[in-house]
């Protein structure tokens, strides 16, 4: 079916003032246009422009959430400025990240990295999580710098580096093994295990084994359940590294 911009005028008008609990069936034409736009670059660009245009003032929070969901499906670099503007806003930051995390454009990652340095407290944790979700190697230095900071942020940073698990991420985690915050230290151990698992899957047995051995040594004297769990995971990992008859 050919894209007909005029047929969406009314749904877009209703969308502007939409609130949760309202009749969402009025946007069905927009849903259908989003699906159809995947095969029509011109329609996709037009639709993206109209959707991004609703992210400014005068649009309800529920409508902006709807728009973010749709942009996560068809958004490109063109939507990034509008979405990035929402990142510091407590009410909209989460859904803006939802879209930016999924948009396949370097500009989206760049916007998240930029926001990481500027947004406050809890919102920063969200940026870390979204950059990890994108597996963004370029954000490793910025995230690594947070490992020694406030506990919750440090935990999120460790988790993110484990998910990114590039050699630089693994090195940053190893360098942070002297962190004293208990929650952060546990998260760093978990993340290092994730790095080792990843290396083992890539067949880099020696590198993986070195991480497992380091973790095992660090947890050797510990009596807590976490220390024991680390020792067990490391022991299992070392054995898997030594076992060259099986692929991990």
């Amino acid at each position: 079916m050919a894209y007909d911009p005029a047929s969406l005028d009314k749904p877009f008008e209703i969308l502007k003032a939409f609130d949760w609990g309202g009749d969402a069936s009025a946007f069905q034409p927009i849903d259908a246009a989003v699906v159809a736009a995947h095969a029509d670059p011109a329609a996709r660009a037009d639709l993206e422009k109209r959707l991004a245009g609703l992210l400014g003032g005068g649009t309800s929070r529920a409508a902006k959430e709807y728009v973010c969901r749709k942009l996560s499906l068809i958004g490109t670099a063109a939507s990034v400025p509008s979405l990035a503007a929402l990142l510091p806003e407590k009410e909209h930051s989460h859904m803006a990240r939802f879209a930016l995390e999924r948009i396949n454009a370097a500009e989206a990652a760049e916007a998240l990295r930029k926001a990481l340095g500027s947004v406050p407290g809890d919102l920063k944790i969200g940026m870390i999580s979204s950059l990890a979700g994108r597996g963004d190697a370029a954000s490793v230095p910025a995230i690594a710098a947070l490992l020694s900071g406030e506990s919750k942020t440090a935990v999120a940073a460790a988790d993110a580096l484990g998910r990114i698990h590039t050699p630089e991420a693994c090195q940053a985690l190893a360098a942070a093994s002297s962190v004293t915050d208990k929650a952060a230290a546990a998260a760093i151990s978990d993340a290092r295990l994730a790095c080792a698992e990843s290396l083992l899957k890539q067949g880099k047995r020696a590198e993986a084994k070195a991480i497992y051995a380091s973790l095992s040594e660090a947890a050797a004297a510990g009596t807590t359940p976490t220390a024991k769990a680390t020792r067990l995971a490391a022991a299992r990992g070392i054995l898997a590294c030594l076992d060259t008859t099986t692929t991990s």
Partner: protein
Amino acid sequence: MPVLARRHRGAIVLMWAVLACLSCGLRPAAAADATAPQDAVQMTIDFLAKDDQAFRAIGLDRVRYGLKGEAATMQFAGLLSKLAPARQLELTAALADRGDRAALPAMLALLQAAKEPAVRAAAINAVGSLGSGTEVAVLTTSLAAADPEKAAARRALTVLRGNDVSAQITEAAKSGEPGLRPTFIDILADRRAVTALPDLLTAAVDGDPSVRTAAMRALAKFGGSEQVAGMVQGVLKAAAGGERDEAERALVTVCTQNPGKERSAEVLLEQFKAADDSTKETLLTVLGRVGGNGALAIVDGLVADANVAKRKLGLTALMKWPDATVSQRLLDLLGTSQDPAERDQLLGSLIRIAPLPDNKLNDKQKLELLQKTMTLCTRDEDRRRVLERANAIRTIETLRFVVPYLDDPNLAEPACLSVVELAHHRNIRDANKDEFTKALDKVLGTTKNEELIERAERYKQGQTWERKKPAKS
């Protein structure tokens, strides 16, 4: 440790060493990773020796799925004789899962040396997983032991691999220890040993009733049209009563459920037609249970016969019918029969047949038949059976049929049961919520049965109810 056992262990270790050398010498040029590194094997062995269960689990996991190769298998198996019984159990199970036959000598040695039944059972299980035809004899010996060894031996013989395994078990079923012959037959059935089918037919007419019963039970599992003639002989050979009934059910299963059931039913009919009168009399109930047009023509002829005995045989077959195709005949006969006992039987058959799930009627026709049957009932006892059977027809019309009987003190309880059973099915209940709520309220005000009260209350609130599983005998 007895001298003999020590000597055996020494011999086994020597054999392992020889096998290891042989395997090294004979192994073709393989990838460098074909042999497990010794440091990994040793680390696994160290883990297996730990008191901490979690570390042992890591080692056992590696025994199961990692460190490939016979040399590692033999090192792990070599630990068995040095471990405490509880650890022997763990490692035996892991080596069985590993599936490397190189562990077999150690398992056989463990079976010979171990005193604890649980360890022996674990060793037997492992022999079943790793062994072949050579191990049939040792497992057969264990079959004579008490549980858990006996149960393990049965499982092991069922899963044992090898082209000659079924043949050896078949031989044991023919000429083995008399008390174990039925067990061997059960094992052949579980193995789906098609090569044993001729021997199972011979066993179906054996002089030993337990052997005959086991053979018919086995044939029911995987017999087909080629076995029907032999199974007919099994039915005829079976002693009247429980054994005959079980044999008949086996034959009915082959003719109504197994692959090629249509051809099997044809063969049964051919066998029946070719039989003498006495044999026909015995086979009529089987024919009735199998059903079908060919059988119906024969049964119709008998029912119409002036000879009272023949008519009775025909009626007996008709009453066993597996579907509702004979419902009109039963109704007609009920309309003409003067014999009270015969009328009771006919009515009972109608009540049984009307809601059968696999019959030829749709739900509306089933309910109409049941309603018509209700009008023919003259006793509350029969009406109660009609109401109880009604819930097998899961429609809202059935609820409407049952609800008026909630007001009849003599019929209220079976009506309550049927209302609750119908309400159990969420798709009917949710689609007719108001009607069900009213009916369930009425049940709550009528029944004294605590389970029905609990169920009715749950269904009213849109909750589920878990049917209690029957206790295992």
